[in-house]
C-alpha cells in the first residue's frame, strides 16, 4: 500500500475516533457505553496496524494485537460482568456537567490543546499530520478526565479512565514508538486496574462478606485448611 493511502486511512480512523468519543460523552446506557469503548479501542488498534504498514516497526503490530486482546475482549467482558452483578443499566447522575455541556466543554478542550501544543510542535519535530494526532490524543486524555469528574457511577468513571488511557496510547503512536516491553506492562497494569476497580465497585453495592468473597481467591482454600 502506498503511504498516501495509509495516511488517508489513518485519517478515516481518526474521524471514527472523534465520533466514538462524542458518543462516549453522551451515552447513558451502560452496555452501549461499554460497546462504544470496545469500538473505540478497535479503531485504535486499526491505527496501530496502519502505522505498522506505514513504518514497518513491529512494535505497532504487537501493540495492535495486544489492544484487540485486552481492550476489545478482556476489559469489556470484565466491565459487562460487573455491570450485570451491580444491576445498573443507565447512568443518569452527573456532577457539575450534563452531557450537553460536556460536549461543549470537550470542544473547548480540543481548541485549548491545539493552542497549547502549537508551542512545542517544532521541538517535537511534528509535521501537521502527526501534530493532529498528538492534539487528538491529548484531547482524548482530557475528555476522559472530564468524564471521570462529571460522572458518579463507578463503571462510567472507569470508562473515562480507559478513554484517557486510549488517548495516551494514541499520543504515543504519533510522537514515537515506545519500547515493546513497556507497552505490554502498561496494558497489564491497565488490566489489573480495571479488575480492582470493578471489584471495588462491586463492593460498594454489596455486603462486605460478598465483596471479600470476590476479592480473595484464596479464601475458600484457606477455610478448608482451617477446618481440619
Amino acid at each position, binding site marked *: 500500500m502506498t503511504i498516501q493511502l495509509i495516511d*488517508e486511512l489513518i*485519517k*478515516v480512523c*481518526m*474521524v*471514527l475516533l*472523534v*465520533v466514538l468519543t*462524542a*458518543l462516549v460523552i*453522551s451515552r447513558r446506557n451502560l452496555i452501549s457505553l461499554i460497546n462504544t469503548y470496545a469500538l473505540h479501542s478497535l479503531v485504535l488498534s486499526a491505527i496501530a496496524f496502519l502505522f505498522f504498514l506505514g513504518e514497518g516497526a513491529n512494535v505497532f503490530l504487537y501493540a495492535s494485537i495486544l489492544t484487540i486482546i485486552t481492550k476489545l475482549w478482556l476489559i469489556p467482558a470484565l466491565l459487562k460482568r460487573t455491570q450485570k452483578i451491580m444491576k445498573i443499566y443507565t447512568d443518569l447522575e452527573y456532577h457539575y456537567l*450534563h*452531557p*450537553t455541556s460536556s*460536549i*461543549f466543554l*470537550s*470542544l473547548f478542550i*480540543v*481548541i485549548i490543546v*491545539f493552542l497549547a501544543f502549537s508551542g512545542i510542535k517544532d521541538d517535537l519535530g511534528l509535521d*501537521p*499530520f502527526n*501534530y*493532529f494526532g498528538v*492534539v487528538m490524543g491529548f484531547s482524548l486524555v482530557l475528555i476522559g478526565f472530564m468524564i471521570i469528574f462529571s460522572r458518579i457511577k463507578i463503571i462510567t468513571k472507569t470508562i473515562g479512565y480507559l478513554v484517557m488511557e486510549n488517548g495516551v496510547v494514541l499520543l504515543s503512536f504519533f510522537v514515537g514508538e515506545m519500547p515493546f516491553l513497556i507497552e505490554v506492562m502498561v496494558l497489564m497494569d491497565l488490566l489489573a486496574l480495571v479488575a480492582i476497580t470493578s471489584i471495588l465497585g462491586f463492593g460498594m453495592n454489596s455486603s462486605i462478606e460478598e465483596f471479600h468473597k470476590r476479592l480473595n481467591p484464596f479464601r475458600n482454600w484457606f477455610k478448608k485448611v482451617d477446618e481440619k
Partner: protein
Amino acid sequence: MSGFIAFAIINVVVVMALAPLYISLVKKMKAFLQGRKGPGLLQAYYSLWKLFKKEVVYSSNSSFIMRVAPYISIISALVAALFVPLLFIPDDYSGFGNIILLLYILAVGKFFMALGGLDAGSAFGGMGSSREMSISSMVEPVVIVLFAAIAFVFRSTNLFEILREASHGLGGYASLWLLLIPLVIVLLTETARIPIDNPETHLELTMVHEAMILEQSGRNLALLEIASAIKQLLLMGIIINLFMPMGFNLQVLFPAGILIAFGAFAIKGAFLAASIGVIESSVAKLRLFRLPNLFALSFFLSVVTIMMEVLL
C-alpha cells in the same frame, strides 16, 4: 443560460415527482418493521390529489397570512429545489447554489408556516408554532456550522461546485465522513421525524409540526405537505450526492445520461428513505429537554471537522 433552464425544468420535475414517493416509502418501511402491511407506495399521491379537490376552510379570526402562507412555503421550496442539483450539474448556474442562501430560503418557508399556525388563533396552532420555533432556534446554529464545515472541506460555498468536487470521489476528504451524522440529525429535525418529533401523532402532548398545520385544510394543506416533502427530498439529495455520488453528473449524452442518473438517484433515495424508516423505528422519541444533547453532538462533530480541515 439555456443549459440552466433545462437543468431547472428537469430538477424541479424530478423533485415534484419523487418527493411524495419517499414520504410513503418511509411510512411503508415503518409499517414493515412493525409487522403491518402499510399503505401503498402511491398513497401520498392519492392523498394529495384528494386534498386538492377539497374545499379550503378558513377560521373567521384568520387574516391574509393564513391565505398566503401555503403559497410562500411552496414557492420557497421550489426555489430551493433550484439550488440542489439531483441528477447533473449545468455548466453555468447563474448565481444559484449558494449554500447559505439555501438555508435562508428554507427558513423563510418555515417562518411563514409558523406564522400560519399562529394566525388562526387556535390553541393548537400557537402551541405547535412555538414548539417548532424553539426546536428551530436550537438547530439553526448547528445547521449553520454544519454548512460552514461542508464549505470548509471543499473550500467553496456553492453547492454546485461542492457536489461537482464530491462527484469525483471522496478520496481526499476523510474528514467529510464526520459530517454524515450531523447531516442525518438535521434531516430528521427538519422533516419533523423521530427522535425529534413524531409525524404520525395527533396527541396534544407530543405533536409539534402536525399541530402547526392543524388549521390548514384542502388545497392549502396539500401545498404545505408538498413543501415539506420537497424539503425532505432536497436534504436527502445533498446527503446522497455528497456521500454516494455514483451515477451523479454523468458526462453522457443528453437523454441516456439523465435517465441513468434518474434511475441511480431513485434507487439511492429509496435506500436512504428506507434507512430513515429504520432509524425512526429503532429509536424512541426524545424529551424536549434532551434535544440539546443531540444538537450539541452535531455541533461538536461539525466543529471538529473544521479543525481537522484547518490542521491537516
